[in-house]
């Protein structure tokens, strides 16, 4: 027994190394499998507040760009207003159209932490469960799709950005409506994604817009994802793969919108029936 203690004492560095290493790896692996159910991340009190402060400072320095993008978006939205169309019929009447019910609502949120140069990137935003945000909602910005919510606390939420190993968005080519799915490319370039699984008969061309498809339950259809830049991306097999330039500049995100699809629950319930049916 005494010899054992002497032995352990002599090589104590090694044993300490093993103990701490196992401890770290357990945390690392556990966090990976339990979907970030841990407090060691940027949504906790201390780091969340610190990031909030610094982001406030940064947002002042970037006000000009934010104003520009908001002005552009305002102009675009103004274009879609009823009042910006003139009626070419003589008789004018107002119709309360009960055929339209709101399906999507948007909550705006400020980005307080962001990264683009890791293998898996996350964004922290300053809206949480108190503002009605739940796990699984989609997140877009004024220029296109950003990602989806993976974890919320009372005041903050964590967004899995498109720049993530597991990110996959149902997409389509804007003018021909051919469906594919958009993932982040293997070369980890924060400006480029990969549109995969497009049927072989499709003839895409460079510069074509890629938008969210009608199948997606996170985003409204037609939200821009990016433009096709290269038709001959590697891989694919029986399907076409093409390179897409993201329309969102992830490194400059300041404000995002969280999308609440009011029919998401209903749809999930309906599609669960399908599995029972089989």
């Amino acid at each position: 027994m005494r010899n054992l203690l002497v032995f352990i004492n002599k090589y104590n560095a090694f044993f300490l190394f093993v103990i701490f290493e196992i401890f770290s790896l357990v945390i690392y692996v556990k966090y990976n499998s339990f979907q970030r159910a841990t407090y060691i991340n940027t949504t906790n009190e201390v780091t969340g507040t610190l990031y909030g402060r610094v982001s406030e400072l940064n947002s002042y320095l970037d006000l000009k760009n934010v104003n520009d993008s908001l002005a552009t978006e305002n102009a675009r939205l103004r274009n879609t207003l009823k009042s910006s169309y003139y009626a070419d019929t003589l008789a004018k009447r107002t119709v309360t159209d009960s055929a339209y019910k709101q399906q999507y609502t948007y909550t705006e949120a400020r980005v307080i932490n962001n990264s683009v140069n890791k293998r898996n990137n996350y964004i922290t935003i300053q809206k949480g469960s108190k503002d009605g945000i739940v796990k699984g909602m989609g997140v877009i910005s004024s220029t296109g799709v950003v990602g989806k919510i993976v974890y919320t606390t009372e005041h903050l939420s964590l967004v899995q950005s498109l720049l993530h190993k597991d990110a996959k968005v149902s997409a389509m080519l804007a003018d021909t409506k051919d469906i594919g799915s958009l993932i982040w490319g293997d070369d980890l370039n924060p400006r480029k994604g990969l549109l995969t699984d497009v049927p072989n008969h499709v003839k895409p061309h460079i510069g074509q817009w890629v938008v969210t498809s009608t199948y997606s339950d996170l985003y409204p259809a037609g939200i821009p994802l990016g433009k096709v830049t290269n038709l001959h991306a590697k891989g694919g097999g029986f399907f076409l793969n093409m390179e897409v330039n993201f329309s969102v500049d992830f490194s400059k995100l300041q404000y995002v919108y969280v999308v609440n699809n009011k029919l998401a629950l209903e749809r999930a319930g309906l599609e669960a029936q399908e599995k029972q049916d089989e």
Partner: protein
Amino acid sequence: MSRVLIFNLIRFAVLVLLQAFLLKNISLYNLSVPYLYILFILLLPFETPNLLLFLLSFVLGITIDAFYDTPGLHAAACVVLAFVRVLFISITVQKDGFDNEPEPTLGNMGFRWFFTYAAVLILFHHFFLFNLEVFRLSELQYTLLRFLSSSVFTLFLVLISSFLFYRRKER
């Protein structure tokens, strides 16, 4: 003694804040990412007990993890770093030399020793960090490129900051 403690506490706070708010946003060509915070472990005094050394490395790693959203990743890499540090120092430094050279700084140990020390420790730390982060071999070439370019960047910053706070050994 308390002076050493206070110096190290300040160093810890400054390096963590620097890493989380400045260096986190820097990356060259999306390849080279500096991790200067490990300078804290490099500069701990020679006579730090092993238990304290590992504990501090772990705490430093987990603090960085909290800012990077990667629980355990930096902690694991820092513990590896601490182990390599123990081995490296036991091989290259005589035990009785500790009295007049309490800390492994550039001024105390000379450029050649410090350069080798920093390079070896940084290489181990970054190699472990990048491979654990990716956790697959299919992107090996890209990971190695990231690892090497980041190591060079970090080593550069470590040397710059060492020269910035250079103090010649008083003899």
